[in-house]
């Protein structure tokens, strides 16, 4: 298991890529949910 997370010594690069990418996608979804709620509340 820890071998999997070590990514053959490239853990920083591999998880840094996936982590930031999915964090940004999640952020976009959250911001959009906010905007959507505001848009519906004030017609």
């Amino acid at each position, binding site marked *: 298991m820890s071998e999997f997370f070590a*990514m053959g010594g490239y853990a920083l690069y591999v998880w840094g890529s*996936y982590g*930031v990418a999915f964090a940004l996608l999640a952020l976009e*979804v959250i911001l959009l949910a906010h905007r959507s709620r505001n*848009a519906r509340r004030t017609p």
Partner: protein
Amino acid sequence: MSTDSLKWLWYASPQTFYPLAGILARGCAVAAAVLAVIGLYIGFFVAPTDAQQGEAYRIIFIHVPAAWMSMFLYVVMAFWAAIGLAFNTRLSGMMATALAPTGALFTFVALWTGALWGKPTWGTWWVWDARLTSELILLFLYLGFMALQAAIDEPRRADRAGAVLAIVGVINIPIIYYSVEWWNTLHQGASVSLKSAPSMAATMFAGMIVMAAAFWMYSIAVTLVRVRCIILERE
């Protein structure tokens, strides 16, 4: 045929498009989540280690699909912008506006993952070669489009001004795509193209394609929700 095309015209009106977009967005969001789980499973547990790069190559499953989306979304955005400019349809401009933030996001992800991939393999985070530079220009095009639209208060005028920028910027897309063939670059050539069989193991290719499909679904869902917001905000 004629009734069919009439039906499409009917959907081109924001009011009728609104509920349809809601249903479509929900379906695509679910598909995106399922495909992402499958894609990540293939990428991390099925695809073998690469002979040259070891585990570092696994960044490919996010880097390449993100780079594809960054270019594809720009073309779609410019297409809608052009339609809006030519036929003066309200929904087209809204589509272009809704696509820009997601396109910019995928461009940034492609650049970010590329830097994190370049450091351990090439030995550098960044070089000013043709592929990397033209992808950076793509990010600026997206940001410029968004800034320009934000700077103009009247939506229809903002749409028209943005459309001109979007259409001019399309020239950058073939430059990005063919940069690795036209010039000497540090970036390697394409592993996957329409002309030849992919130069990678089948399971690696499968992981990349499934992740690309997930990003497609994600982009459609997010864009449709954003179009709904824009319809509500403008009308």
